[in-house]
């Protein structure tokens, strides 16, 4: 068991974890932040995407101990207790989610992406989504939602 200290959505957590505990399991089951979803545990589907020290990562491909000392952002941190962000609102208006299981990962990837590409082209957004599976929407509404959110910034 290894002691770690991780900040998630601005709150500091000190926990003792097994070395092999996945970061995704740590977030979901140790911290109870179940907004981050697990869809494949081999880094393909993108459901578990979070932001670690400013960069989006697949939390199923990290161990919790590797995140020791890091700052994480998860979907729960986007709006906090307040109003939905422009990106979240755009997802709602465009019907860019159905079952909602892939949505938190795509939101976190999009937050990272829009930080780097404030005025993205459609092709860039489609390229971003090539790393995420969504089986409900057919992707197009997600592309539109991210472009809408970029336009509002």
């Amino acid at each position, binding site marked *: 068991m290894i002691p770690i200290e991780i900040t998630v959505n601005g709150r500091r957590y000190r926990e003792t974890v097994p070395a092999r505990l996945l970061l995704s399991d740590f977030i979901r089951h140790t911290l109870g932040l*179940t*907004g981050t979803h697990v869809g494949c545990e*081999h880094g393909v589907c993108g459901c578990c995407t979070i932001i670690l020290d400013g960069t989006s990562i697949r939390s199923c491909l990290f161990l919790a101990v590797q995140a020791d000392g890091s700052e994480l952002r998860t979907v729960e941190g*986007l709006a906090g207790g307040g109003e939905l962000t422009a990106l979240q609102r755009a997802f709602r208006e465009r019907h860019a*989610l159905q079952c*909602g299981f*892939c949505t938190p990962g795509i939101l976190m990837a999009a937050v990272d992406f829009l930080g780097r590409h404030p005025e993205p082209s459609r092709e860039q957004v489609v390229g971003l989504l090539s790393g995420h*599976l969504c*089986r409900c929407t057919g992707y197009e509404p997600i592309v539109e939602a991210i472009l809408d959110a970029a336009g509002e910034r």
Partner: protein
Amino acid sequence: MRQQWVGRPLPRFEDEALLRGAGRYLDDLDPAPNACHAAVLRSQLAHARIAKLDPSAALELPGVVGVLTGADVAELSRPFPAGVDCPIPYRAAAVDVARYAGEPLAVVVARDRYVAEDALELVEVDYEPLEPVLDPLTAAATERLLASDRSFRYGDPESALASAHLVVRERFAFPRWSGTPLECYGVVADWDEATGSLTAWANFQGPFTLHSVAAAALGLPGSKLRLITPPDSGGSFGIKSTVYAYVVLMGLASRKLGVPVRWIEDRLEHLAGSSGATARITDVEAGFSADGELLALRYDVVEDVGAYVRAPEPATLYRMHGSLSGAYRVRHVAARNRVVTTNRCPTGLNRGFGGPQLYFALERTMAIAARRLSLDPAELARRNLIRADEQPYRTPSGGLYDSGDYAACLDDALRLARYEERVAERDRARSEGRLVGIGVACIVEPSISNMGYITLARTPEQRAGELPKSGNAEGASVQVSPLGGITVRVATAGQGQGHATVCAQIVADQLGVGPADVEVITEMDTSTSAWTVSSGSYSSRFSGVSAGAVLRAAERVAAKARRIAAHLLECDPDDVELAGGRAVVTGSADGISLRRVAGVAHWNPEALPPGLEPGLQATAFHAAPNLDPPDADDRIASSAAHGFVADVAVVEVERETGRVLVLDYVSVHDAGRLLNPLLAAGQVRGSFAHGAGVALLERTVYDADGNLLTGSFMDYLCLTAPELPPLTTGHRQSPSPFTPLGAKGLGEGTTMSVPAAIGNAVADALGRDDIELPLTAPRVWELLA
């Protein structure tokens, strides 16, 4: 003035929680405190005798609670019943013989999942390999593997074929694939020894008939299998209908070990051991007159359902039975249906459910006939489409189509696709040596399945000695609380379709409130929800039948509210209108709030009209009409409502690589009245994505020994955003006379039509008919070589 909420493109109420990460999916819940974690030991071979299964080393591992083996499953449960008498019984785990790679052999239960998986490695298994059968035609010739063989004949297909100017004879294969929801299966099972009952939380998609199937396997009356589905489910597309087998498996583990058991399937397990669509081989004979009239159709179908006939199979084969003639006027139809088992994971519901398989064969046949008759495929379709003035239309096999102008839809699609220009462009491109093709598909999209169609797998003589099955019903409750709050409860167990939003729209219209004033409870609990054997989400039944149950319950509450208000306002109930949160006397300013009406019903029953019972709530059941059991001639109205879809695909094949580029795709639907056009568009687009997936990329592949080659998302390739073709859609709205709101299902149509339309377009581009799905670049390139 009353507001009309049904029909508006209202964004969803569900989204607020989901976008915040506050959804409640199965693995987010902790419904049974101190549950232990299960891991499933699975067969590594496709067919093998389990000579030895020794868990003793696993039991020594600290943290391991116990093991449930196939022998325990055999002792504690019965085989699952299915629609046909199958020589090979299906149980929740393999007993003595494993019949597919990935089949459960044992369940290890431990204090945490990591330890449970460690312990799996310690279970000693000795396999004695047996010869696997992977070829469905070999299985069809093997008595023990042929689970069902039925022949159907409507009209006089032999004479019609004999007199035909052209007979097309072709074989079509449809691949096995899966909609692969992103949330895998999950079950928490808690056996109560004191009452001999099981409570299970599972991301299942209803109670459906499968609650009864699970209860039968457990040897429990339905009341002692309490099944609860969480409010959110991470997609299903039919695939999660098989969670029931794991409800039984984990229920038995909980019973044997005396602890609540929690099992969350991982993706590798899901791809190997959950479910998928059937693989189908269809030999078609189709007779045409010289001017293109389709005179007769004969199908010879071999349906591969995997290792066991697992309920509700062989339903995939019969879901479309009333639509064997598709969208066409042909009156002479025959079919031979053989259901075979092979050493693959068993199949089940999957978006389209029999439609993609049927229409790939039928619509490819139409395209081949058009070319041989030197007719444009759209023109051939138009000459054969059922006419608007023939609706409602009874098909030769007993289907009852409800409404729609199919030819007008096709014309819309051709116009949106700029069809004539596209044909000219194609011909020009061809003269330049490019491989451009155009494909058309016209399909009827059934929704709301007749619970009786599965009995077609049995002969009329067998059926005569059994209790008939028919219909398709759903229940719902609406209640108004003492403070005027409105709550709707449904048993649809949706998986992201937006049921809560549409239910709120329906109830808002009836009670004269805003949809935001209506709370919709989507958790399903077989002990407390209003449900029936057909309850759940499958066969696109929500907008037709589930919405109908909500409407009926809301109508009853509204009628009672008007009666109470009329008593208080001293007027006739017919003069009371519910609008703006109030009950008002029509044409006057007099009125009281709905809250006040509810308050009287709860707080002051003495003020109610004489004889009226207190409270303000109603539970209603609604059944779709016309869904009789199959008749003695094997005719059946297999679905209650029928939409229509006309598609045009334009593709170019890259000669150097074999890559298929979809340049344009147009899909025009008539799904009756759209209850929420925003959500309808989402269903159509999602259904299109699944259809494009199986047309272009997706396939579950086993090698000759029955090893799964597509066991991860690195190998089972789902379409991602860059690969998804462009889509243009159009809608007509011909209300169904058979559903309370005029709506028809629309979430499966494009999954049925796209493989056919893209297949036709690629065949047109290549100038050859021996194409196979999915049309991946390597396979198309081989055809070009």
